[in-house]
């Protein structure tokens, strides 16, 4: 049986891996672009975050193409973003499509995940099947993250960024086709070897910028993050430590040290997204990065609530911070203009001793 989902960058590949383990398949979501954004804006309330609008735009486009079975992965950990667990709400928005069903995967721990799979596919799903499905999902999420991070790094450090992009495309294709853990391990080995041979630039990165922000935007590739990652090819080392992988793997145990790290800035019950961004910003400060880039979807509540906190962290550390809210009127030209100004500022600060 075929399902459909939204992309969140390339993470749909991991969802497809999970479904294929269970004998199902997943349609490839349409690429994010102006048409998808406009569809989402048309069917969402204006106050919904921009990431949510992109998700709704992708759902609407696929429903119009005849897809009916929405399957999506919400976070497995204690994430309280409104995007999680809203399958009933999503169904109500598209009630005019006969036969439309929406179901989320994930859930609290293994038993919650098993219960969710059974409620969707029936009680015949065995524990061993659930285990294999999530092993495939987690394995692909991990490898997607590794490919994304290393290729962005190599686009900065290597002399052949176009080859890096080609390797990245091939790696994504191999991850998608890998049927099981052994095949994934082989893809990982192939990727390690392929990327180990790249000729590197002699000069070190001109700047190091730490990126924090909404996981849904950070995982997006087709429009927004493509512009951001383009900075790497100008010799700027980009680093981010949040993402779909961290959300999928978060638990109270893994979040406890982050809460401790953030205790001067965040107090009661921060959400996972807030915690990641705050903790990673503090990491970048302690590692003496040249600047902080905060990227989030306009209307994203956790990141908006966190913005004054990040401004305080940057002020306390005297580190330049650029907050970029990506919203309905997002235009690549404006984004590039603001990024260039920020880079010029960081460059002047680092190389000419200019204090902004």
């Amino acid at each position: 049986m075929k399902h459909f989902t939204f992309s969140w960058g390339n993470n749909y590949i991991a969802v497809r891996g999970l479904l294929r383990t269970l004998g199902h398949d997943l349609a490839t979501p349409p690429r994010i672009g102006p048409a998808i954004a406009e569809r989402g804006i048309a069917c969402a309330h204006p106050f919904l975050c921009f990431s949510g609008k992109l998700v709704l735009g992708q759902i609407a486009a696929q429903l119009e193409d005849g897809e009916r079975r929405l399957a999506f992965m919400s976070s497995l950990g204690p994430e309280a973003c409104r995007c999680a667990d809203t399958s009933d709400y999503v169904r109500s928005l598209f009630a005019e499509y006969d036969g439309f069903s929406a179901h989320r995967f994930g859930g609290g721990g293994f038993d919650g995940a098993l219960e969710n799979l059974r409620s969707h596919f029936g009680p015949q799903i065995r524990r061993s099947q659930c285990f294999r499905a999530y092993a495939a999902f987690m394995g692909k999420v991990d490898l997607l993250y590794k490919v994304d991070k290393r290729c962005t790094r190599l686009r900065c450090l290597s002399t052949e960024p176009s080859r890096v992009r080609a390797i990245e495309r091939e790696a994504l294709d191999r991850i998608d086709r890998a049927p099981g853990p052994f095949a994934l391990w082989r893809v990982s080995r192939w990727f390690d070897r392929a990327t180990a041979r790249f000729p590197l630039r002699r000069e070190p990165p001109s700047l190091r910028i730490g990126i924090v922000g909404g996981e849904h935007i950070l995982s997006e590739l087709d429009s927004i993050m493509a512009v951001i990652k383009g900075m790497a090819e100008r010799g700027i080392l980009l680093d981010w430590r949040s993402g779909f992988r961290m959300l999928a793997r978060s638990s109270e145990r893994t979040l406890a040290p982050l809460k401790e790290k953030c205790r001067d800035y965040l107090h009661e019950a921060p959400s996972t997204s807030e915690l990641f961004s705050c903790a990673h910003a503090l990491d970048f400060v302690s590692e003496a990065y040249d600047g902080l880039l905060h990227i989030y979807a306009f209307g994203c509540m956790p990141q908006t609530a966190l913005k004054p906190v990040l401004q305080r962290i940057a002020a306390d550390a005297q580190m330049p911070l650029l907050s970029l809210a990506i919203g309905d009127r997002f235009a690549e030209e404006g984004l590039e203009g603001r990024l260039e100004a920020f880079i010029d500022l960081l460059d002047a600060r680092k190389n000419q001793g200019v204090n902004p």
Partner: protein
Amino acid sequence: MVGGAAPPRVGVPRSILHYEFDGAIARFLRALGVEVVLSPPTNAEIFRTGKRLVIDELCFPIKIFVGHVAHLASQGVDRIAIPTIVGHVNDRVFPCHPRSRLPDIVRALGVCDADRLLTPAFRYDREGLAKGGFLALAQSLGISEAAAERALPERRPTRQTPNVPVAPGGLTIGVVGHPYVVEDRWASNQLVGRLERLDCRVVTDTAPTPIDYAPEGTGLHFALAARTVRMTRVFDRDDRIDGIVFLLPFNCGPDGDVARHLARTTSKPLLTLVLDELQSSAGLVTRLEAFIDLLRPVPAAAGGRST
């Protein structure tokens, strides 16, 4: 008070959690013998102060709230109570992120010294506000647990249906929205008064009703959005209610989410009014008059009425 020391003057912002908790924090502090300084009702100056301090993207009520805190900070109170609401004990429904970050936002903005803030964390349980937050508040003022237990407010049971007036004639309008919008006359742009001047009876439910589930068909995690949906359904099924007005503060994510859901699933006439910082009453009055005229059996608009 303990030790015979002069009781501290504690400021309580008349905003967000004051309304959401139905004034329980101020009553509790008074019962402990603390001198409570409640900030005045919201006015343009308080709002402008908050707006200057807060980033544009945060919602309208947060700007009002920060204005109240700044007002209290300028009044020389010893401490300012900014409780945090962190959710329900069932871990199924939560406050929106900005509401759960109020103390952190105030600290980050530097509105007042961090050591002047009292920031106890509150949770809801099935009976109302769980007592742990009250005890933590008392403890942070150096008051014994026994004294705090004696001062605990009466817990409110879940109220399923509002008290609808039954007088004959006229229209009855149910108003739904966050308590800190519906009850704050400045934030709501005097909505209740304007409706009453249009010869309407107004029904609101501003009791701090704990909600321990997401209403069916929503999957909602956010407590107040779930409450908005539930109250709208209560009004929708009540034959005594003629129409529903939904007050939606600008840029409120959770209630923005449910706005279209309500428009699709509510059978009674529903007017959604977005309240923003521009506070222009002209458009609001026109929309209210048009809505009320639509509900009346014989339109009265020909008379050229003005509120």
